[in-house]
């Protein structure tokens, strides 16, 4: 009973937020100065006759009043994943198509690096909090604060200078070698070789954050009375840590990790730019440079939905590891 209501509530909340995001995205691009037709055709190098302009206006729905006419049309189109066409970056192509062409590359990069940084950060954070003030904690704490203070793109540039420029160990960018004559395992190795530095950058950039979150969360839990009770019962320290402390300390961590997905995505934009890695981050940068507003609006929408899904997943996971929230 409780579980179901919790799930429905969380999904309902996510849907409301989605509605907010869609509305926000709609109005954000309506405050753009200038004529939408001019904006869309800017740079495409074509001159439209008045009749063609009118036709395009009708097609885009900008002949109607902004609200409710255009709004309703926008919502309908968005729900069908019709986000318009790119004007400059990929002239004439559907924004959705362009986005999902690049998406797997970013998902691969961001997914594996986030998983690695969460694993390393959380495990180090547990040790750090448990052995508070000892050598391992102090060094990981210092390292984490330093890593936290480095912008992702600066870290990327430094790794690029070091490993690609100076040592010549890795290619300086791109998704794979331009020759395109590699197949099978060779090609896979080539792709991984290209992905390694951006992957390392993103992994290192977020270890610090997850370490600090897990460490402080564990410290909070260790101050609770049930930990003292567990120790007073004569339970082994390792057992107290694993069954009592870590389990409970993971709860707030899950939420914070989900919230940090927005930052990971932001990091992906700058890191993909540094390594010219052709994912959605670089795509959104290209859309920004060219002021390809339809594409920019589309990437922004997909990024927001991505973070929304991450948060919803965290909420559901939370319910799974902490039965209290289901019955509350």
């Amino acid at each position, binding site marked *: 009973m409780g579980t179901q209501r919790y799930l429905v509530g969380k999904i309902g909340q996510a849907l*409301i*937020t989605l509605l*907010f*995001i869609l509305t*926000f995205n709609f109005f*954000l*691009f309506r*405050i*753009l100065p200038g004529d939408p037709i001019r904006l869309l055709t800017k740079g495409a190098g074509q001159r439209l006759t008045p009749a063609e302009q009118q036709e395009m206006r009708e097609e885009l729905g900008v002949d109607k009043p902004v609200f409710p006419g255009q709004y309703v049309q926008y919502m309908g189109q968005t729900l069908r994943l019709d986000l318009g066409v790119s004007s400059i970056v990929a002239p004439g192509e559907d924004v959705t198509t362009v986005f999902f062409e690049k998406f797997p590359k970013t998902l691969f990069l961001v997914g594996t690096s986030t998983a690695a940084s969460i694993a390393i950060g959380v495990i180090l954070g547990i040790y750090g909090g448990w052995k*508070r003030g000892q050598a391992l904690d102090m060094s990981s704490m210092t390292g984490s*604060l*330093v890593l*936290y*203070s*480095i*912008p*992702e*793109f*600066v870290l990327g*540039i*430094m790794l*690029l*200078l070091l490993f*690609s*420029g*100076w040592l010549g160990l890795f290619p*300086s960018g791109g998704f794979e070698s331009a020759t395109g004559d590699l197949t099978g395992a060779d090609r896979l190795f080539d792709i991984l070789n290209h992905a390694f530095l951006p992957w390392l950058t993103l992994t290192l950039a977020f270890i610090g954050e997850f370490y600090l979150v897990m460490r*402080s969360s564990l*410290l*909070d839990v*260790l*101050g609770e009375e049930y930990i003292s009770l567990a120790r007073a019962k004569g339970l082994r320290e390792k057992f107290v840590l694993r069954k009592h402390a870590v389990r409970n300390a993971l709860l707030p961590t899950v939420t914070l990790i989900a*919230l940090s*997905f*927005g*930052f990971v*995505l*932001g*990091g992906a*934009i*700058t890191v993909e*730019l*540094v390594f010219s890695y052709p994912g959605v981050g670089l795509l*959104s*940068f290209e859309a*920004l*440079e060219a*002021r390809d*507003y339809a594409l*920019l*609006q589309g*990437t*922004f929408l997909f*990024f*927001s939905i*991505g*973070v*929304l899904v991450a*948060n919803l997943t965290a909420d559901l996971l939370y319910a799974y590891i902490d039965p209290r929230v289901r019955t509350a």
Partner: protein
Amino acid sequence: MKLDEAPVEVEPTEIRTGRQIRWTRRRDAFSRFWAQYRRSPFGMVGMIILIFFIGMAISSLFIDGSSLSKTAVTEESIAPCTFATLPCPPNANNPLGTDADGRSVLTLVIEGSRVSLIVGFTASVITMVIGALVGILAGYLGRTSDTLLMRTTDFFLVIPWLPLAIVLAAILGQNIFVLIAIIGFTSWPGTARLVRAQTLSVKEHSYVERSRALGATNGQVVSRHILPNVMPVIFANTILTVAIAILAESSLSFLGLGDPRRVTWGTMIDAAFDAGAISIGAWWWLLAPSLSIVLVVLAFTLCGYALDEIINPRIRER
């Protein structure tokens, strides 16, 4: 222990005015605070780095603006390099080397320190004001206002920060004030949540209830009880938001959204990157502004953590 509730020792013969008592209290509170802060090695390191950079920002006021101009570059100013061999690596003449236009990287970094710090501070003031306002209102008013304000906060918390800032900057234009506004208006949700939590716990204290029973208005309760107790948390949080704001400015500038007329560490890295500093191995051009960002952000983060430990007694007890 509240910082402003120190036992005041009044000598019986001495009659002091309210103002004197308040000053004594403040001085005592500050010296106790300082004694605690001094014990934090992280906090002290952070403060020393900060003082260094604030000194640098102040000294930037004495830079002759014309030395930043590309036209002021002469054969002598770039010696031992020539115009054909720019950017010039570090040498006795230009200790941190020059950029591709022959301008001294050291001068640029010093000039950038002022703008980067100002952006960080002003943006975090905006963050603090909005966050505090939303947090206190939500926590104090409760019910519908709370739900409404927190839903809005959650909404801004969920939207990925950098893509939002990119979209806003693309729409609103590239100018330092727009940049400050964007950073300030997009980073408040975290502060709002923190302030709300603190407000809720202060509200539970019996003295708040008592003062209300004695007829205090909402405004009086907020200004006399809630705000003074929430202020330390806001302050510690603001130190951390300065770090975030400086990171934000550098990221946006790196993406080419900085103010082209002003030198910040972010725009320096952007210019170096765009000019291919990596492929020609001009590490000095990238290193100085990068290291400056890292050190300043680290300094603010260290100070923020140290303050947090003092202000949040739950951490200190362990």
